[in-house]
């Protein structure tokens, strides 16, 4: 049996950011981003959810080994962003670290690093009430 299924896993990381576009004036930034433009930044407990698709291996019953997935996400994403300021990361030097862009950044970091399967989406929950999902380039 090699049915295709999806395996999902949720991770938490805490990070700070400030939404500010250099191409906009200070006034335009305040208008666009409101309190998220606070020059001192602010933080969130982010939930990063990943969904991996692939055939269910007959001998293990798994799409991907949880331990291998955890290790990849820890190395590529959690160690890089947890308890950090997102604005200082090299990926956000010319891109505003909105959660939309953060989802895309995480997708890019994981896409080619997975030990098995294909990355279907990355979902980032910024708070309990807003979240963003990226499925890769169309």
């Amino acid at each position, binding site marked *: 049996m090699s049915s295709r299924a999806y395996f999902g896993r949720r991770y938490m990381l805490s990070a700070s950011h400030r939404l500010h576009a250099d191409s906009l004036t200070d006034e335009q930034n305040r208008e666009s981003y409101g309190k998220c433009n606070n020059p001192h930044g602010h933080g969130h407990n982010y939930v990063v959810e990943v969904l991996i698709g692939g055939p269910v291996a007959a001998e293990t*019953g798994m*799409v991907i080994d949880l331990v291998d997935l955890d290790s990849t996400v820890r190395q590529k994403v959690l160690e890089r962003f947890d308890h950090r300021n997102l604005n200082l990361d090299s990926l956000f030097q010319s891109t505003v670290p909105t959660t939309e862009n953060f989802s895309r950044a995480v997708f890019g970091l994981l896409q080619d690093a997975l030990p098995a399967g294909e990355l279907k989406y990355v979902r980032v929950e910024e708070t309990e009430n807003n979240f963003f999902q990226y499925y890769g380039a169309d």
Partner: protein
Amino acid sequence: MIELTRRATFSASHYYWNDAWSAEQNERVFGRCANRNGHGHNYTLEVTVAGEPDPVTGFVVDLKWLKDVLEREVLSAYDHRHLNLEVPEFASTIPTTENIAIAAWNRMETALGAAPGARLKRIRVYETPEIFAEYLGEQ
């Protein structure tokens, strides 16, 4: 097209073991999950049905009926059971979250055939709040 999802919970025990492998290999691949005494989870199962709302009732499918089908086909077989020892499909298949999603799909698909205009779209099974698997049928 509307998707409608019903959520239910069940509690069950299981362990991961491949009879074709040595004990050492099972323990290396499956870690703590290979403990033959088993361990348990509170599972959450989401069944998603897709279809057009009926022009008279406004329902894609009657939720009470869906609840009854889920209870009869899946929950009554899985809830408070040892999946490896008491559920036939896991006598020869390891009850990973992936395989539970596939097995629940197979149990629901035939029964849902009785609902005109609705079809099974997705089964998602949470083993813990942080771990889940989903199955969309043969693709």
